[in-house]
C-alpha cells in the first residue's frame, strides 16, 4: 500500500491501510444481459465485516468492449476523471478509446479517500491517495482476464500478454477481446498485491492524453448541479441573515406574493426564500419582501475588531508543533530579525454559485448537487429531512469550481431546510451576493517569524502561526493538543535546515464569520510567510535570495533542483528596467517540489503589472503532464488574484464585498506569459491542484520588493505603500 513519506505530503492522519481480498474482488454478478461487472472494492471495511459488496465498484467491462470506470473523486476542473481513469487503464491495459467514466455514489467503504479516511476530494490528495490502489485494481482484473484466456486457449498464462483490451497469444497470433472473456473470469491466482508495471513500461501514464470531460464543456451539454431540471422543478432564491447568528424577526410578503410567477415564501429562523416558476420570479419576489432582521450578538463586529483580537492573540504562547535545539535561547541575544505577516479572509467565488436541487418526499429525498464531500452531503439531508441515509439519493454533478467551498455542506443543509417546506422538487440558487457574503472564508492569519544568521547561515528560526483552526470544526480528530494539523502544515516542516527551530500555533476563532478550506489551505499562509521572510533574511545579509535558499537545502535535493532550474528558466540574472523586479518562492507543499519566479513592474502610482511567471515543478511521477501544467497555470493565477485583490472585510457584522465588481478576479488582460517546466521524476506522485496558488503570492510579494524596495507584510497588496512618494 502506498505510503507517503515525502515531507509535507500527508496533511491529515491517513486511514487504516486498505487491501484487496479475492472474495471482495470477485463477488460479481454474472449473466446479466450484456454486462458483467467486475467489482473492485477499495476499502476493506465492508468485506472485513462480511457484508456483501454492492454492484460494481471501479471497473465495469461490457461484452461490447466498453469499459466504465467509476471514479471516486469528483471532477471540478482539476482533471481527476481523466487522471484516475488513466491510472486504471494503464494496469488494465484497457483500450483508452473505449473508456468512459461515472461519478461514484456515496459509499465510504468502497470509495473513501485512503489518505483522508472519508470520501473527500481535497487537499491535493486524489492522485497521491489512489495511485497505488487503482493500479492494483487494474492489475488484478488484468490477471484474471489473462487467466480466463489461458483456460480458453489451453495455454499457460505466461504465454499471454495484454494490450488495448485484448489478451494476445503471440505464438499462435490468437487474440481475445476483454468483452468476450467476462463470463469466463474467475478469481485471480494472485492473492492481494499484484505485480505492477515498471514505470518504464507505462503506455498511458505520463502521456498528455485528452481529457474525458472537456468535449461536453464546449457545447453546453455538460451538466453542473445548477443545471439540474427534474420534472416539475420550481426555482428558489434566498436571503440569509446578513449577520452571522442573526434571526428573522418578521417578513411582510404582501408585495412578493402578488407578483406573477411567485408561488411560495418560505420563512425559517435565519433564512427567507422565495419559490417561483423561474429564477426571475423568485429573485423579484425576494426583492419585494420586507424582512426585519435581528442582528444578534455579532451586529457590532468589524474587521478592525477581528484584527485586534487576532493580533492580541498572537502575543500568547502557542501550542508547540516543533522544538529542535533551543531556539528561544539562540534568539535571546545578538542580531535577530523579526517580521510579522498577515493574510486576509478570502472568498472562494466559484463561478458556479452555490446551489442545490432537492425533491423531498415522505419516502425519500433526491438531491442534485456537485459536492466535494458526498457522504456528508447525504448525511445532512438525512438529518434535516429525518430520513434514514439509505433513503437519500445524491446525484453527483460536475462542479463549476470547488476550491474547497464544496467541502462544506452548509449550503446543502440550508437548501434541504427550505425544500422540506416545498411540495415537489425545487432548485435553490444563491445569488452571487449571497454566495460571497455567506462563504466559509479562508481564515485570516497573523504570523510572527524570527531568525538569527551567523556567517550567512541560519542558526535559529521561530515561527508562530495565529488563526482559526478549521480542523477543530471540520474533523476534530485532526486538531490535537491545541495544534491545527492544517494551520502548521508547511511551517512545522519548513524545508530550510536550521539547528534551532521552534514552531507554534495559537488558535483564535474570529467572530461573525465561518472559516473553511480554501485552495492551498494551511500551506498557503505558511509558504507566504516563510518565503517572504526568508527573502528579507537573505537581503539582510546581502545574499542572492535563490543562493540563500539553496545554501539551506542540503537535505532536500529535489527543492534545490527546481530552484536551480527556475534560476535558469526565468533569466533570473538578466537586467530589467528600473521599475521592474523578480521574486522567487520555493515550497514542498502537498508533496510536490516547486520553485516559482514572478516578474512584475511597479509604477509611480503603485500600480502593478505582471510581466512573466516561471514555475519549475518536480511532482514525482506525473499521470497527465498537460493537466499538471494547466493546474499550475491556473493555480498561479488563483494566487495572484488573491495577492493583488483578495480581501473580505466586515462592518456592523456585515460583509462588504458582494460581487465581482468589488471582489475582483484577475482578468485576461492582466495575465502575463506563464511558463511551467516539469522535471521528470520516478518518485511517488505529489499533489498538484493547490500548489500554484501557494506558490505565487510570496513570489509576487518578493518581486514587488525587488521592483520598488518596499517590503510588504500583509496581503493583498496595499498600493498606497507602493506609490513613489510613499516609499521610504
Amino acid at each position, binding site marked *: 500500500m502506498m505510503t507517503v513519506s515525502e515531507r509535507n505530503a500527508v496533511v491529515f492522519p491517513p486511514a487504516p491501510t486498505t487491501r484487496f481480498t479475492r472474495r471482495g474482488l470477485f463477488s460479481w454478478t454474472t449473466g446479466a444481459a450484456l454486462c458483467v461487472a467486475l467489482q473492485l472494492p477499495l476499502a476493506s471495511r465492508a468485506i472485513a465485516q462480511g457484508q456483501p459488496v454492492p454492484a460494481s465498484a471501479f471497473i465495469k467491462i461490457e461484452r461490447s468492449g466498453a469499459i466504465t470506470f467509476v471514479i471516486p473523486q469528483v471532477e471540478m476542473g482539476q482533471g481527476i476523471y481523466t487522471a484516475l481513469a488513466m491510472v486504471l487503464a494503464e494496469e488494465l491495459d484497457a483500450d483508452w478509446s473505449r473508456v468512459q467514466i461515472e461519478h461514484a455514489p456515496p459509499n465510504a467503504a468502497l470509495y473513501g479517500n485512503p489518505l483522508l479516511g472519508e470520501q473527500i476530494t481535497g487537499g491535493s490528495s486524489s492522485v497521491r491517495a489512489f495511485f497505488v490502489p487503482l493500479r492494483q485494481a487494474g492489475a488484478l482484473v488484468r490477471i484474471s482476464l489473462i487467466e480466463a484466456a489461458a483456460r480458453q486457449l489451453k495455454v499457460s498464462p505466461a504465454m499471454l500478454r495484454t494490450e488495448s483490451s485484448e489478451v494476445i497469444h503471440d505464438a499462435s497470433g490468437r487474440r481475445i477481446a476483454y468483452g468476450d472473456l467476462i463470463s469466463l473470469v474467475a478469481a485471480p491466482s494472485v492473492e492481494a498485491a499484484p505485480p505492477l508495471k515498471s514505470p518504464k513500461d507505462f503506455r498511458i501514464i505520463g502521456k498528455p492524453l485528452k481529457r474525458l470531460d472537456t468535449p461536453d464543456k464546449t*457545447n453546453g451539454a455538460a*451538466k453542473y448541479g445548477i*443545471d439540474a431540471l427534474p420534472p416539475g422543478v420550481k426555482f428558489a432564491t434566498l436571503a440569509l441573515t446578513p449577520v452571522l447568528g442573526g434571526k428573522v424577526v418578521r417578513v411582510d410578503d404582501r408585495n412578493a406574493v402578488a407578483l406573477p410567477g411567485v408561488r411560495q415564501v418560505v420563512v425559517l429562523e435565519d433564512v427567507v426564500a422565495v419559490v417561483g416558476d423561474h429564477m*426571475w420570479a423568485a429573485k423579484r419576489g425576494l426583492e419585494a419582501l420586507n424582512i426585519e432582521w435581528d442582528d444578534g450578538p455579532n451586529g457590532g463586529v468589524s474587521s478592525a475588531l477581528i484584527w485586534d483580537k487576532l493580533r492580541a492573540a498572537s502575543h500568547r504562547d502557542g501550542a508547540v508543533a516543533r522544538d529542535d535545539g533551543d531556539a528561544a535561547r539562540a534568539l535571546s541575544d545578538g542580531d535577530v530579525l523579526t517580521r510579522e505577516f498577515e493574510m486576509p479572509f478570502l472568498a472562494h467565488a466559484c463561478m458556479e454559485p452555490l446551489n442545490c436541487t432537492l425533491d423531498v418526499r415522505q419516502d425519500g429525498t433526491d438531491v442534485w448537487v456537485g459536492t466535494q464531500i458526498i457522504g456528508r452531503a447525504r448525511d445532512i439531508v438525512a438529518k434535516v429531512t429525518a430520513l434514514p441515509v439509505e433513503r437519500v439519493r445524491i446525484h453527483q454533478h460536475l462542479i463549476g469550481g470547488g476550491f474547497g467551498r464544496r467541502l462544506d455542506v452548509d449550503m446543502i443543509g440550508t437548501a434541504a431546510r427550505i425544500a422540506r417546506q416545498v411540495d415537489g422538487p425545487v432548485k435553490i440558487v444563491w445569488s452571487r451576493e449571497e454566495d460571497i457574503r455567506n462563504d466559509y472564508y479562508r481564515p485570516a492569519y497573523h504570523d510572527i517569524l524570527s531568525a538569527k544568521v551567523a556567517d550567512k547561515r541560519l542558526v535559529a528560526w521561530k515561527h508562530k502561526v495565529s488563526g482559526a483552526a478549521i480542523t477543530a470544526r471540520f474533523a476534530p480528530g485532526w486538531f490535537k493538543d491545541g495544534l491545527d494539523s492544517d494551520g502548521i502544515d508547511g511551517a512545522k516542516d519548513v524545508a530550510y535546515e536550521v539547528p534551532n527551530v521552534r514552531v507554534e500555533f495559537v488558535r483564535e476563532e474570529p467572530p461573525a464569520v465561518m472559516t473553511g478550506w480554501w485552495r492551498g489551505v494551511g500551506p498557503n499562509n505558511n509558504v507566504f510567510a516563510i518565503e517572504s521572510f526568508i527573502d528579507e533574511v537573505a537581503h539582510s545579509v546581502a545574499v542572492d535570495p535563490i543562493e540563500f535558499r539553496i545554501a539551506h537545502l542540503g537535505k532536500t535535493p529535489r527543492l534545490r533542483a527546481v530552484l536551480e532550474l527556475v534560476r535558469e528558466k526565468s533569466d533570473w540574472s538578466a537586467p530589467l528596467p528600473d521599475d521592474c523586479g523578480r521574486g522567487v518562492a520555493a515550497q514542498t507543499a502537498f508533496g510536490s517540489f516547486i520553485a516559482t519566479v514572478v516578474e512584475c513592474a511597479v509604477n509611480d502610482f503603485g500600480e502593478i503589472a505582471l510581466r512573466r511567471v516561471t514555475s519549475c515543478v518536480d511532482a514525482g511521477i506525473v499521470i497527465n503532464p498537460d493537466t499538471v501544467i494547466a493546474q499550475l497555470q491556473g493555480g498561479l493565477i488563483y494566487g495572484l488574484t488573491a495577492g493583488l485583490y483578495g480581501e473580505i472585510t466586515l462592518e456592523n457584522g456585515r460583509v462588504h464585498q458582494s460581487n465581482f465588481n468589488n471582489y475582483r478576479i484577475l482578468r485576461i488582460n492582466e495575465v502575463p506569459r506563464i511558463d511551467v517546466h516539469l522535471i521528470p521524476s520516478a518518485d511517488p506522485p505529489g499533489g498538484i491542484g493547490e500548489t500554484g496558488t501557494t506558490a505565487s503570492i510570496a513570489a509576487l510579494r518578493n518581486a514587488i520588493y525587488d521592483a520598488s524596495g518596499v517590503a510588504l507584510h500583509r496581503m493583498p497588496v496595499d498600493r498606497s505603500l507602493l506609490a513613489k512618494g510613499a516609499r521610504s
Partner: protein
Amino acid sequence: MFALTINGTAMQVDVPADMPVLWLLRDVLQMTGTKFGCGIAQCGACTVHLDGRPVRSCVLPVSSVGDRAITTIEAIAEQPTGRKVQAAWLDLEVIQCGYCQSGQIMATVALLNDNPHPTDEDINAALAGNICRCGTYVRIREAIKRASAGGA
C-alpha cells in the same frame, strides 16, 4: 407574448417583459448551456449572441430583444467559426471546470467573426469581460490564436 428566434427557431414565449434572457433560456426553455455567474454583467458566463454580437443575457430583458436573432452555445457548432473555436479549445485543452467556457467561447466566436486575426490587444478588449476562476486565460489566448490561424 414575445416573438423570438433562438438558434434559428422562431417561437412565442409568455414571460414577464423584464425577464432577462438568461432565465428564459435556462428555466423556461431548459437550455442550460448558458450560465449564471453574477447577474450584473460583470463575469460574462451568460454571454449569448444577438445578431452575432456578444451580449450579457443576465441583464438583457426579453422585451428588448425585438427581432434580433439569439444564438446560444448549444448552436454555436452550426457556424464554421464556432466549430473552429471548439476544436481549438479541445486541441489546447483550455478547459478546467468549464463553467465559464460557454461564455468564453461565445465571446471568442463573436470576436473572430468580426476580426479574423485579432492582436493581443484585440483579445484583451474582447475577452476582458469574461472571468475564469480556474485561470485558463493563458490557454484561451493561445486557442484564440490557434482558431484564428486556422481560418487564415
